[in-house]
């Protein structure tokens, strides 16, 4: 465990042969171990599954092909392959490892959970002694994560040592026999099972974590009313009321419609029926532009895809990222002269404790948590009526998460709706929580909250 920048990935990279250690030595199965390259480490028995599983296969290949890719590139691989022989070998491999994979589907069609399984199967197929997983549940729903855990337990029972890197304390509590907490490149704590999570959190951020926020009484005025909204034709109608100054969280598995609902309110996705009202007036945005003009702003999931311009182009600095939606308001004449942009960024850097070299720092030089703070700063730079955040804590460490939660809860004028697949995040953040399943909203009652 460890916050962003604690050195987890660097450690993984040293173990898996990407970087050479500056000093010290490693022993693997009692013998000195100094891998010269990732391939070298893999041969020695270090299997690494990186956070991004896009690279576990290629669109156009079936899952079976992807699983056998390492064998195919081996020097002693047969020149001719038939679909059947590959399929048979892959099935044998998957069965041996105890994996249930959709071998005949195209890699492009399978979901993140299957990609994760595939990446693990590929990694352990090479007679691994140590399996390293970097944030494996970052894009998995609760049910998919459970499937991953049972696979990992099977591998553990077969004598594989597993290094499991995660921000999520729930995963660690569920799975780990021992938790090592890194901070600033050092081991800050080494905790035996049962793992004391609050001690782990404290070690991780170097200070005690603020207690779960108490729900506030919702007495602000109604900002957004959603009545009978259909996300798709024939779907269940959705009702939702948001008040100024409250934080409402949506949780639930991937594909339940959380992102879709946020996108519909934010004008980024069409709706099939129903009505919305913003401050009592009918509201039906046809584009994000219209929604933003009405004061309804959406920070999409995956900040790199939905919010950021490449860092090395114009628009890629902290200040420019914050100002992008506000250019028309801030620079009505069109020319980008004056300090408006820089001042807004300087404010945000101080207010949200963003660690950056300054307003002109390129975004790529910031850590994930600080980048996410910049996204929040963008949408808080101008007063909004409704702030929609889709998975705002992806790849964000606990320290930065606490700062973001504090900034959201300090905002008493805006109605905030957050989608997160992590119930713990929802509890830390929200005044009210809905579980979303099959495009239906189910209120998570107070009783359930404390029982969970």
């Amino acid at each position, binding site marked *: 465990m460890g916050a962003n920048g604690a050195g987890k990935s660097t450690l993984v990279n040293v173990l898996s042969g990407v970087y050479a250690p500056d000093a010290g030595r490693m022993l693997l199965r009692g013998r000195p171990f100094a891998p010269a390259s990732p391939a070298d480490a893999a041969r020695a028995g270090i299997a690494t599954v990186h956070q991004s599983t896009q690279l576990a296969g290629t669109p156009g290949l079936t899952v079976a092909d992807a699983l056998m890719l390492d064998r195919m590139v081996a020097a002693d691989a047969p020149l001719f392959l038939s679909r059947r022989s590959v399929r048979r070998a892959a099935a044998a491999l998957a069965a041996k490892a105890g994996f249930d994979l959709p071998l005949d589907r195209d890699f492009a069609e399978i979901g993140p959970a299957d990609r994760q399984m595939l990446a693990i199967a590929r990694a352990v197929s090479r007679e691994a002694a140590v399996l390293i997983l970097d944030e494996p549940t970052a894009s998995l729903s609760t049910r998919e994560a459970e499937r991953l855990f049972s696979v990992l337990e099977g591998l553990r029972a077969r004598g594989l040592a597993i290094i499991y890197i995660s921000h999520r304390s729930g995963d660690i509590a569920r799975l780990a026999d021992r938790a090592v907490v890194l901070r600033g490149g050092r081991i800050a704590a080494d905790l035996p099972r049962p793992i004391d999570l609050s001690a782990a959190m404290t070690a991780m951020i170097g200070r005690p974590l603020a207690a779960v926020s108490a729900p506030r009484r919702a007495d602000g005025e109604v900002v957004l009313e959603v009545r009978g909204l259909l996300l798709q034709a024939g779907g269940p109608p959705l009702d939702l009321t948001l008040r100024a100054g409250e934080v409402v969280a949506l949780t639930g598995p991937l594909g339940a419609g959380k992102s879709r609902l946020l996108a519909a309110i934010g004008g980024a996705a069409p709706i099939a029926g129903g009505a919305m009202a913003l401050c009592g007036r009918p509201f039906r945005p046809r584009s994000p532009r219209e929604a933003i003009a009405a004061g309804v702003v959406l920070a999409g999931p995956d900040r790199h895809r939905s919010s950021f311009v490449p860092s090395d*182009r114009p628009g890629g600095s902290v200040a420019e990222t914050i100002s992008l939606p506000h250019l028309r308001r801030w620079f009505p004449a069109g020319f980008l*002269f004056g300090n408006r942009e820089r001042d807004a960024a300087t404010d945000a850097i101080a207010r949200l404790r963003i660690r950056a070299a300054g307003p002109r720092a390129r975004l790529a030089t910031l850590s994930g948590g600080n980048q996410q703070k910049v996204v929040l700063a963008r949408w808080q730079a101008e007063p909004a009526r409704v702030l929609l955040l889709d998975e705002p804590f992806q*790849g964000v460490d606990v320290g930065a998460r606490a700062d973001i939660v504090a900034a959201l809860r300090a905002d008493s004028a805006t109605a905030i709706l957050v989608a997160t697949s992590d119930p713990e995040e929802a509890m830390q953040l929200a005044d009210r929580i809905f579980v979303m399943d099959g495009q239906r909203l189910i209120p998570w009652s107070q009783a359930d909250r404390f029982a969970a």
Partner: protein
Amino acid sequence: MSDEPAAEVDTLPPETRMLPTETRAPVAASGWHTANRRMRQSALLLLLAAMVAGFARADAAFLHLANLMSVLQSVSVVAILAVGVTLTLAVGGFDLSIGAVAASSVMAASYAMVVWQWGALATVPMVLAFGAGVGLVNAALIIWLRIPDLLATLAMNFLLTGLQLIPTAGRSIASGLILSDGESANGVFDPGFLAIGRARLWGVVPVPVLLMLGIAVVLHVLTQHTRFGRLFYAIGGNEVAARLAGAPTRALRLCAYVISGTLASLGGLVVAARVGRGDISSGSSLLLDAVAAALIGFAVLDRRYPNVFGTVVGAIFVGVLLNGLTMLNAPYYTQDFVKGAVLVGALSLTFGLGRGRS
């Protein structure tokens, strides 16, 4: 340039953007990195200065004002077209139709004056509107029919290359052209029109050079110092993000193609005014030269993205090199080879060498 970022904040390679976490903490640049970066930023400008000095040493006539103006005049049309390409590159597109737009603008202008006997005041707006119209059609194909930029504009290039031949049955246009109905067209090029290509300000600066510089300044300011430019680059960098931030992405992409088409037809007007006849083979090398200038522009100041200043420097760079080599009696048939070598060198500088900086 005053808007260059401080050297220490941009030392991570672009690939780092895709890395998950951890490694993106601000990195302090070592002296070597800074020096290396400064070197690459100024490499092309230094090379340009060295070339000018070298050619001046070889022949003092190279530095004469008349010769310098002739260099600038020779690159003005390419530079005007290249600025248009730069704009479409900035929005993440690519306008390959500019060469054909320029060539058919030459024909359209000639046809209007020779056959229809129009004056300059009617011809110029008509031709510019034609260019803008082609830009609109390009944008429609790309934005509404969702044809990839390269394919749509390549097809448009093909279409216009053929279309310009049809009204004159494949013949060049000059006064006395025999039309298909047997009559001869007796219109002449309006002297006011010819001035676009031939007049000089104070008898020194040719009008095409003034046009090039004016367009360069206006579009440099537009792309670097206005919110429209910021949005152009945002769309080119990440269209989804730009749309979610409320940018009118379709309108802006359309704008880029209309500007590109208009600039290409302006380039055609300059060619027609300079040559004084509608030559069917004019404009054949304009497309590749303009694209090359825009790509060389990536390396100027080591920006690695399409930028107007770099594009104009890129066009001038090629012009100086060709002029100097011609002065040194290099044969004309080596010109394309030289341009190609410059392009390969500039691209290596932009993409290859830059990666060593991590």
